[in-house]
């Protein structure tokens, strides 16, 4: 079976622009959830969020394209460029059919859509601009990235709320195995506009705290809902052989295993038990040809909702059994907020950086770990030999996805080189 690896990381997140800023920020334990600044958030369920400061889209995207697209797409375009630059991969150097785009979406072009509806209802149909039809819909970021980089390979846009980032990368692996050697995967999200935030509020899962320290607190005794956030990550996924052959500057890790399940219980309530979340983890680990013993670190979904945190802890106990107390579990997203489809893509970026640096970042904004969970939560960055990392992500409604990332060793690369010679 074709081995599929990640060779480029592009991060646009509240923790920073670019993988290095992101990594330094979460290692330093900076809390990047703050009062919403784009508008007065007082009327809304939550007034705090993870916001991307210092993101000037016009530095990165042609102004003509900026007016045609929502902030969510700006972030996708910028993160895609970062990932390609990081991997030193220019799609123009290859057959246009050798590259494709598979970005997840969660909620589409929110601010753009609200603005156009405002025009429609306050001024009339003629106030709706020419770009509404291409900016609001969920395929906008994938379509624009494909056009910008000239990629003609199979495109996709998977939508599974917070699990979307993992699902898009799982599918990217499928696309590579089916013969497209490079896939741009991951995703971003931009929900910090009044109407989208109103919609988020109805989910019943947001923190109502005005104090960022008291807000989104995964696995904490005081967990009381999540703070939304904007941004995410885009990753370049490649066939290991072609990545080696073209001399990719780095290979961060292999997508060794992936699986998705659904609770299929209730569209709005959490599952009664952790059966299907545990099953996603077990399937992903088996898909990697590994066992739970091999997992060195878990980057959890970390919902920050007490009931959901308890379910994830229960799922982890099912998977790791008696070993659970000695498996490091982290959720750095507590530092940045929950980024919907962008969040699970960002978890993948974080995992790859952790493997490279040999450091597990801490759970974000954790003060009092809930002892009932029995987890080895990472409280301060911990140096670890990380060969295999398991990532969990859930989507509202019952989506469970898990991915296993494995370090690519020098021996792996020798195997590929030998294969190429013979």
């Amino acid at each position: 079976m074709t081995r599929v690896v990640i060779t480029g990381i592009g991060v646009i997140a509240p923790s920073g622009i670019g993988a290095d800023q992101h990594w330094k920020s979460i290692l330093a334990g900076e809390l990047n959830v703050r009062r919403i600044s784009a508008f007065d958030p007082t009327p809304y369920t939550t007034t705090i969020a993870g916001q991307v400061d210092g993101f000037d889209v016009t530095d990165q995207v042609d102004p003509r394209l900026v007016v045609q697209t929502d902030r969510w797409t700006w972030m996708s375009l910028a993160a895609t460029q970062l990932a390609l630059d990081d991997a030193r991969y220019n799609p123009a150097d290859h057959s246009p059919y050798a590259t494709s785009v598979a970005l997840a979406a969660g909620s589409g072009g929110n601010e753009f859509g609200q603005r156009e509806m405002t025009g429609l209802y306050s001024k009339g149909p003629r106030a709706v601009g020419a770009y509404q039809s291409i900016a609001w819909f969920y395929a906008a970021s994938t379509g624009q990235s494909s056009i910008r980089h000239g990629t003609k390979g199979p495109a996709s846009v998977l939508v599974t709320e917070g699990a979307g980032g993992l699902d898009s990368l799982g599918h990217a692996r499928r696309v590579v195995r089916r013969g497209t050697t490079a896939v741009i995967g991951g995703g971003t999200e931009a929900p910090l506009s009044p109407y989208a935030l109103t919609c988020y509020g109805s989910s019943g899962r947001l923190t109502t705290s005005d104090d960022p320290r008291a807000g989104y607190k995964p696995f904490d005794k005081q967990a009381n809902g999540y703070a939304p956030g904007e941004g995410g990550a885009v990753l370049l996924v490649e066939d290991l052989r072609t990545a080696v052959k073209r001399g990719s500057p780095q290979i961060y890790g292999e997508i060794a295993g992936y699986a998705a399940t659904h609770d299929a219980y209730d569209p709005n309530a959490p599952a009664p038990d952790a059966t299907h979340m545990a099953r996603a983890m077990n399937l992903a680990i088996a898909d990697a040809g590994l066992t739970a013993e091999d997992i060195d670190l878990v980057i959890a979904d970390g919902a920050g909702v007490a009931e959901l945190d308890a379910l994830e802890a229960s799922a982890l106990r099912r998977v790791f059994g008696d070993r659970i107390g000695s498996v490091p579990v982290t959720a750095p997203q507590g530092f940045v907020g929950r980024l919907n489809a962008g969040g699970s893509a960002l978890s993948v970026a974080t995992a790859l950086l952790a493997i490279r640096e040999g450091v597990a970042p801490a759970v974000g904004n954790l003060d009092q770990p809930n002892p009932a969970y029995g987890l080895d939560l990472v409280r301060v960055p911990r140096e670890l030999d990380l060969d295999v990392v398991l990532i969990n992500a859930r989507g509202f409604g019952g989506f469970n996805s898990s991915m296993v990332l494995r370090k690519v060793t020098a021996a792996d690369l020798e195997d590929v080189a030998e294969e190429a010679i013979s």
Partner: protein
Amino acid sequence: MNSSRRVVVTGVGVVAPGGVGKQAFWNLLTEGRTATRRISHFDPARFRSQIAAEADFDPLASGLTPQEIYRNDRFIQFAMVAADEAVADSGLDLRSGTGVDHNRLAISVGSAVGATMRLEDEYVNVSNHGRDWLVDPAYGSKFLYNSLIPSSAATELAVRFHAHGPASVMSTGCTSGIDAVGYGTQLIQDGDADVVIAGASDAPISPISVACFDTIRATSARNDDPEHASRPFDATRDGFVMGEGGAVMVLEEYTSARARGAHIYCEIGGFANRCNAFHMTGLRPDGVEMSAAIDAALGQAKIDPTAVDYVNAHGSGTKQNDRHETAAVKRSLGAHAYDISMSSIKSMVGHSLGAIGSIELVACSLAIEHGVVPPTANLENRDAECDLDYVPKIAREMPVDVVVSVGSGFGGFQSAIVLAKSEVAA
């Protein structure tokens, strides 16, 4: 990829303009009637295009509970009703939770614009009719978040059929309906699922959607003659007519479908999608990328282009689309392009954005089943650059063993899928 796992269609369901259910749908198509009319969902007087193909849909009468109706946008309601019909048609007992290995039952739903109708209705309430940028959450409904995230469609179907396998919404604009079925096919081929409830749904007939296509003049303004407004390949066509609806297919791994004695409509021989990487809404006239998708899909099916009997066209009725895909089909099929029948059911049921790809696949399955090709209604005088046999106005009885269905959408997406009578595919 485990290419030995073959995928067949064992159930179909549809909610389309002109009637709910596969029988009403097939009657409309084979009689060549059109379901396009003046918009009744809202007063369209202020809009350039005032026509659409609307579904006469009563969710209660179609078996949904008041809670399901209250919680879900119309596009999800379509998907649920179409899925109920498809599952019943397949003979699988899925709602009891005992029908199959439910851990290997997957959901793949396509949608281009999700719950746009509900989002717009609720926006009007919370914004005081567009007056307030800082909208007031007090006027929003309890299930507003379910509408913001189109993934709710996959969730509803997963819950409905106790599907604990992978579930997702595929949202690639107007190719969503093909891509969602293609994705479901890949899940079975790759061993990630044994049965997939796959399809697509969209309910875009609302002021914001009509306005956004008005402004780019993509839709027909033949307001004085709505029944004849959707005119694919005709020289007088002036854009597409928006539609709505949903369609669902039950996909199964071939040997297990055979083992349980299922009725098999057809086999999904191949699926491929490509991008033109050219323009979000524009198409180059040569059709190279759509042709590449057709070639790849036929290649997977190991079917020679000369074996194709019927091409279900994207046939939206815009000037550039119909020329673009005519060129693509000629590029892939060569001289054989002039021998095949090619038609667009959008002439009758309109263009329901992401849903239509799956609605068309149900039509293709029925075409194979009955040996009848639906016509292109309203085709009086071919565009000079559209010189293939588009089956004008009258359905055609003929053996239909191999079908190619194509789609093209905003974002530059081009998709093709091959359906074949199951004994024909290798």
